[in-house]
Every structure is written in C-alpha cells, then in structure tokens.
C-alpha cells in the first residue's frame, strides 16, 4: 500500500532508492498492486501515518491494524461472498426443492465457513479471498455456460495471484473439450483467447511499453532463485527430502525441469478426461485434480497453497462430503506449525472444532441425502485420527531433540503428504469413474 500510493505505477516493480525491493517488494501480479492502491487510499483517509513513505515501515497501532483487517473483511464480503452465492445458485438450480433445502444451507455454511481460508486471510493476513473469489466466479460462469465471462474472470484471478495458475490446466482442458464439441471450434477458441489476451492487456497496461519493464515484473513473479521449497510443506519434494536430499544432489535448473515434468504428467490424466468428455461435475473434479498435483509436485510451494485444492473440494462438498472433511482437517494440520508461529493457536483449535460441529449439524435423517462419513477402512482411519491428535499434542507439549530441531514439523508434513497423495489418487479415480456414469449426460449436452 505504501509503495503503490506514493510511487507511479511504472516504479512499483523496479528497485530504486524509494522502492527497496528487498523490504517485502511486490511479488504478485498487477491486480494485487491496484487492489493495494485502493486499500492504501482507504488507509490514507483515516490514518495517513500508516502508509507514509519510509516512516510507516513496521507501523502498527490498534487503529491501523483495525483498518487493515477491515480491508480484508470488505474484500471478502465484496468479492468472495457474491461469487460463492452465484456458484451456489447455479449449482442448486437443477436440484429439487423440499428435503434438500437443508443440504443446500449446509453447503453454503461449508463454503463460507472454511477454517483454512478464515485463518489465513483474517489471521495470518492475506488477500486470498479476492483471487479465490474470482476463481469461484469463473467456475460459476462455466457451469452456467457463459464461457467468455469465465475466461475474463479467471484471467483476473491469475492477475491477482499467480498461484491461481494451479487451476489453469482444468479450465483449459474443460473449455477446450467443450469448444471441440461445438459447431465452430476454431471460432470459439479464438474468441476465448481474445478475451484472455484482452484482459491481460488491460491489467498489464502500465508495463507494456517495453519488454524490459515486462520482464522486470515477470522476474518478480517467479523467484526461481528461492529454491525447490522453503520451510516445511506437505508436498512430495519436502517429504522425500528426508531420504533424497534434492537440493544437494541437483542444480536448481535440473530441479525445475524435474518438477515441471512431474507436475504436468500428473495433471495429464484429468486434462485428457476433460478434453475427451467434458461435464460440469468432471470440471469440478478436474479443478481438484489439477491443483493437487501442482501442490504436491510444483516448485516453491507454500503451506498456504493448500487453500487452492481446498476450494474445489468445498465446491464439491455436497457430492462428496467426506472428501472435503478429509482435506480440510489434514490441510489445517499441515498449516498448524505456521499458525502456531503466528500465535493463532486458540482460533485454530476453535475453528477446527467449529468446522467439525457444523459438518455434523444435527438434522432429520429423512430430510437429507448427505450421509455421515463412510465406513471404509475403519482401523486405518482410527489409527489416522489417533496420529492426528497425537501430532498436535506432541507439537504443543514436547521439545524437539537438539540434533533435529524441526523434527515435529517434518513428522507433520510427512503424515499430511501421505494423506494428500492418497487423496490425489482417490480423486483422479473418481473423476475417471464419472465418465462411465455421465455418458448419458454427455449425449444430452451435445448442443452446448
């Protein structure tokens, strides 16, 4: 906010005397910068000292903190909530009334009272609600067959946070699949590309005057020099680095190639499925099946990126409630060390408990079709639950040994990675099984 309201747009991503990029320089695309500008104006109106150049570094008073929290809250209410309501209306459009009303109400609660999003956006402090909200808006547009709007919205989401690219394969494959089934596929693809390019052009307008400026911004967005992973994150590289010391064995350029190949190849099955037989349900699973491999195998993944697979899982909460519950609880566990460092232990525990309570809201069995958790593999699940609680207790009460100060973080990450990997296999299988059930639906949707 300080940088965007005190400097002209062309200097935002450039290192200079007034803009010291090493002090938390901008590393998100221009839409985040514009949003920071708007919020900076809001803060300047009420507390100018909080965004003054240089002197506001590290500035934190009761009032400035309140204003900052209000910017996230207002973004949430103005972007994420309307997008979720649009999706919810479109999703429930085809469903019958009556007993499923309480299911629909439960679904909205699950979508909006997402403990991970609340803890990260309103606790740790981030603006994921904007990019996730734009993505949900794009999903709602796809489901209501307004593909051009979907392209525009998803491009905006990409321009807010580059991590939204985790969903790009799913959008690409589903829209391509739909285009190929229309009367004039080339025209459809062309119009969508024009919309995407147009949106990008509008957002990147201040930086299009020279390739240098463009490259400067791009270099801020993709900091490859930071390495394969930072801290402890429950993905493949970090979990297997216990046995194979990737960073020591290979150069960064080689590791970039490895992660690219593995990520793309794990996304391919879902993409192929959607190109060959696109469907709305398949699209939602496709979102999950492209964000999970990205989380597990991509370069420079943060723990907070679990929010990305969580989004499609929440959209699918009525189709597969136990999947969403599984991902939420283990996603929370994977963020537990981060949240403890942020002194958010109490909100973490209560939101985790509140989510569990809302998931198991008491209702008449005859009224709803959402059954309780499945009864598969009871012993394994019981063991998993014991480990879940045990890891929390160990992390909170015991001190790690001197030789391995991050032992408990590593244990948590390996445990979560194991669950996420299982989940990825399960969701991929489910998406492929969908095609057998949805053969009939595809025949009906020939005219899309």
């Amino acid at each position: 906010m300080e940088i965007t309201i005190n400097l002209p747009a062309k200097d935002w991503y450039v290192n200079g005397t007034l803009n010291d990029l090493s002090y938390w320089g901008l590393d998100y695309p221009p839409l985040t910068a514009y949003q920071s500008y708007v919020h900076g104006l809001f803060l300047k109106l009420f507390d100018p000292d909080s965004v003054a150049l240089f002197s506001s570094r590290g500035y934190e008073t009761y009032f400035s903190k309140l204003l900052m929290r209000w910017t996230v809250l207002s973004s949430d209410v103005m972007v994420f909530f309307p997008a979720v309501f649009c999706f919810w209306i479109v999703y429930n459009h085809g469903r019958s009334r009556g007993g499923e009303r309480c299911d629909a109400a439960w679904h909205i609660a699950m979508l909006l009272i997402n403990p991970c999003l609340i803890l990260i956006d309103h606790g740790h402090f981030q603006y994921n609600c904007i990019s996730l909200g734009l993505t949900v808006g794009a999903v709602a547009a796809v489901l209501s067959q307004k593909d051009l709007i979907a392209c525009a919205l998803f491009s905006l989401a990409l321009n807010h946070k580059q991590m939204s690219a985790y969903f790009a394969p799913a959008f690409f494959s589903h829209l391509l699949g739909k285009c190929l089934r229309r009367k004039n596929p080339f025209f459809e693809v062309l119009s969508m590309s024009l919309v995407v390019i147009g949106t990008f052009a509008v957002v990147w307008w201040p930086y299009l005057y020279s390739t240098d400026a463009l490259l400067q911004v791009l270099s801020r967005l993709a900091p490859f020099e930071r390495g394969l992973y930072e801290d402890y994150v429950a993905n493949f590289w970090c979990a297997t680095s216990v046995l194979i010391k990737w960073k020591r064995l290979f150069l960064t350029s080689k590791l970039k190639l490895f992660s690219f190949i593995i990520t793309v190849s794990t996304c391919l099955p879902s993409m192929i499925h959607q190109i060959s037989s696109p469907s709305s349900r398949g699209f939602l699973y496709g979102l999950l099946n492209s964000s999970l491999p990205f989380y597990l195998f991509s370069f420079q993944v943060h723990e907070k990126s679990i929010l990305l697979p969580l989004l499609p899982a929440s959209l699918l909460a009525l189709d597969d409630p136990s999947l969403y519950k599984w991902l939420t609880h283990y996603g929370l566990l994977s963020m537990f060390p981060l949240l403890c460092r942020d002194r958010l232990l109490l909100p973490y525990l209560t939101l985790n408990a509140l989510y569990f309570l809302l998931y198991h809201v008491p209702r008449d069995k005859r009224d709803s079709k959402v059954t309780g958790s499945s009864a598969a593999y009871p012993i394994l699940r019981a063991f998993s639950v014991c480990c879940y609680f045990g890891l929390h207790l160990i992390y909170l009460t015991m001190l790690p040994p001197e030789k391995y100060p991050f032992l408990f973080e590593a244990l948590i990450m390996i445990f979560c990675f194991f669950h996420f990997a299982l989940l990825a296999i399960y969701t991929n299988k489910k998406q492929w099984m969908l095609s057998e059930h949805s053969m009939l639906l595809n025949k009906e949707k020939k005219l899309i």
Partner: protein
Amino acid sequence: MTKLAPPPPASELLWHAAVATCLKLLLIPSYRSTDFEVHRHWLALTHSLPVSGWYADETSPWTLDYPPFFAFFELLLSYPARAVDPVIVHLHRGLDYGAGSVVLFQRITVVAADSCLFYAVHRLTRKSEPGKARLIWVLVIWSPMLLMVDHVHFQYNGFLLGILLLSISYLSEGKDLVGGCLFAILLCFKHLFAVAAPVYFVYLLRRCFRGSFARGFGRVSALGAVVVATFAAAYGPFIYHGQMQQVIRRMFPFGRGLCHAYWAPNFWVFYIVMDKVLSFVLRRLGFDIQTPAASFTGGLVGNSSPFAVLPQVTPLITFIMVLLALSPCLIKAWRNPQPKDAARWIAYAYTSGFLFGWHVHEKASLHFVIPLALTAVQSLGDAKHYFWLSIVSCYSLFPLLYEAQEYPIKVLLLLLHCMAMFLSFSALFDGSARAKATAPESRKVDQSGEKRSSGLAKEGGFTIGWITKCYLFGILFVELWGQFLHPYILGKKLPFVPLMMISVYCAFGIVYSWIWQLRSIVRCSS
C-alpha cells in the same frame, strides 16, 4: 389426536452448547471491562485472607460486594488459579494483572460455569416438544446478551441465571421445596435477585397450604428450615465474627445515585428527562429554578436533591414503587398459584425491579429477558412480544462494548439473533397453525388457557406488526445517529446525547413490555 413427537436427544443440546462454547473461546482476546479485575481481585482476596478479612479488606477499590456464597465460589476457583499462575492470587502483585494466563484462566472459568445454564435448560426442556425445546435452546444458549455481557464485558451471569432457571424448572414441576431452596442459594450468590423474593414468598406460602392446614404447616416449616439453613451456611461465619454490619454495608453501598453513569433504560430516565424539560420551560417562563448541586450518578448528599423541579426520589420511594408494581402479580399468585405460570411471574418481578429500582445497571435486563424466553414458546402473542423485547434489550447493552473492534461483533450477534428468532418462531408457529387447521375437531384442552390456543389458530403464522417494525427500524436510526451522524455533524459537542438517546428509546420499549406483561398476567384466566 395428533401424536406429540418425542423430545430431541440430549446430544442435540450438547451440539448447541458446543457451538456456543467455540464462539465464547474465540471471544477470549476481546475487550474486557473493569469487572475482570474485580473478579481477579476477589480470587486473590479469598485465597490470601482468612474469612474474617474478606469484607474488611481495603487493598483495592474493588471491594467484595456480593454475598458470601459467591465469595466461596471465588475461593474454589482460586486454587486452580494458583496452579495456573501464582501471581493471579497474590493480593498486591496481582493488582491489574493482565497477562495471557489470567485472561485465559478467567475466561475459561466463565465458559465452564455456563454448564450450569446448560443443565438448567436441559432440565427445563427434556419433556417438551422438539420444536419448542430447540427454540428455547436457541434463545437461551445462543443469547447474544449473555455472550456480550459474560464473555466480552466479563461477568458470571450465565452461571447465576442457570441457578435461577433450575429453580424455575423445579417450581414448574411442582417441587416447591427444591425450587425454594435453590432460590435461597441464588440469593446468597447475588442479592440483586431478591427482587423476585416477594413472588416466591407468596407463591410458595400459598402452595404450601393447598391441602390441609396441618400438612401446610409442615411444608412451611420444612421450607423455612431449608431457607434459614441456607442463609446460616452463607452468613454464619460472618455472624460468628460479628461482621454482619460490615457485610451489609459492603453489599448495599451508599454513595450511589439513582442512575448509573450510563442510564439503564428504565422509568427513571423519563423522570429525569421530564425534570430537565420542565426546569427549562419554567425558567423560560420566568420562574426562578435553582440548578441542583447534586448529580444523578453521585450519592445522596444530605438533603440536596439532584432534581430541579420534580420531587426527590429516595431508595425508599423506589422500594415502595417496586412493591406496588409487583402487587397485581402477588395477588394473582396468592389466588391461584399455578406451576406453569411461575416463569412468567418471576420475569415480571425482575422487569418491575428493573424499571423502578435504585441504581439499576443495564445488565440487569438479562434477569428478565432470559426467564421470558421460557414463556415465548407458549403462544404466538408471547413469541411476538419476546421477539422485539430481546432485540431492544440487546441493543440497550451496546454501549457496554464501546471499542471499535467489538462493533462488528455486537452488530452481527444481534442480527444473527434476529434471524434465528424469526426463522425459529415462523417454523414453530406456522407448523402448529397448519396442524390446527387440519384438525378442527380436536379441542385441545391446553393448559395455558383457551384464549392462547384459540389465538394461535386464528392468527396463523408468525408476523410482525407495522408498529413493531417501525420501532425496530427506529433502532437503526438511533444507532446511525449515535455512531456516524453525531460525530460528523456535532463533533465533540454534547457527547452524552447518543447514549441518552439509546437509553430513552429503549426505555419506551421496556416500559411497554412491562405493561404488556402486566396485562398478560392479569388477563390470564385458568
């Protein structure tokens, strides 16, 4: 005859309690008032000093002004407090202690003490229909007033109201001895609950003599013995030490005026405003009116009165007025003490005490709003009355949480409560109206009187009249003025005006509620 559905399982009540507990835990880091330090000091006081020193100590301005059972309760809590952090219970080093340990410990004691409220609600609803039981759970366990006063401002009202509700539960089942004993115990926890003592006295006395005189006399003696024993257990140690006068002086302090600094929305608000208006008008007309030296919030200073024109009000006058207000209810209770009406009369007693009492805190509105929730499910008229009364009372508590970060919390709690009430009442009364429409032959001999059940069938669903709607929307305007327009237009001038507007506006509502309750009690024929 329609078969009544079985009451919902206790696990559903636990679910409601668990959700409320999560909310309360999330409110732990929020604003806390001086009451927090008061209770912390009482932990230290009861832990560090012998019983003889409790009501005599002067270390802190927050002297013990609750009866002895509450002091024993604090003593009980002080042992785990010392285990958590010894500084909490240190008499001198713990003064104004604000570390994380004491905040967490004290907030969790309030959350834990609420289990008394949960048990009382469980006992009250275990034989009710599922719809009514769930509604009472939503109204009491998820009450925004309790959340705001107990878990932000900091008090132990949930615990004390739990004892009151437990006593009402036993009375409504006809178990007078236990009910009376619990009320005596409650009086030894917080003497402010004594406003309902006349109702209890008349009701229990009349109930004792419903049979033969000899049995009645036996019952009265048993009840009397139990009550005396309770008071002896509480005040015994202080009588032994000869400190009763000191205890009474601490529990009923002089030096407090007719009103609190923020005027509770009761009858005296109108009296004060009338006095000011009259003095202004009469001065304009040329009369010589002296500006009074005393203030409303200060104590009684000799013979000087804080009123310029109207006669002075003393504690005795307020006492007499409360008794007068209670008299119709007492007559009703004497004539026909029905167990099912106990909650209604007790709520009426606390409403009268709130309206006409001396130095009433706005938090005392909890004492009548929570018991009224039990009557709200009995008929459509009761439900409509409770709907707007709880909104007005909750709004009158807003000035308690004056910091900026609690503003969205209190507004959203009130809005959620409105929505939950509206949806629940609609579901309950639309459903039963439909049921009655389909079974016109079954004349339900409803215990709550034919008038109420016939009203149900005629009026249909739960709707809000236009007067109520206007009044409730008026709250929006009062709030907009106080929060936004007043600072913008008038700046720092006349800072008391927003609070005064809230007091006066809510006072209208509460006075009307008192009249409505009085009419409902007098009219009810059984």
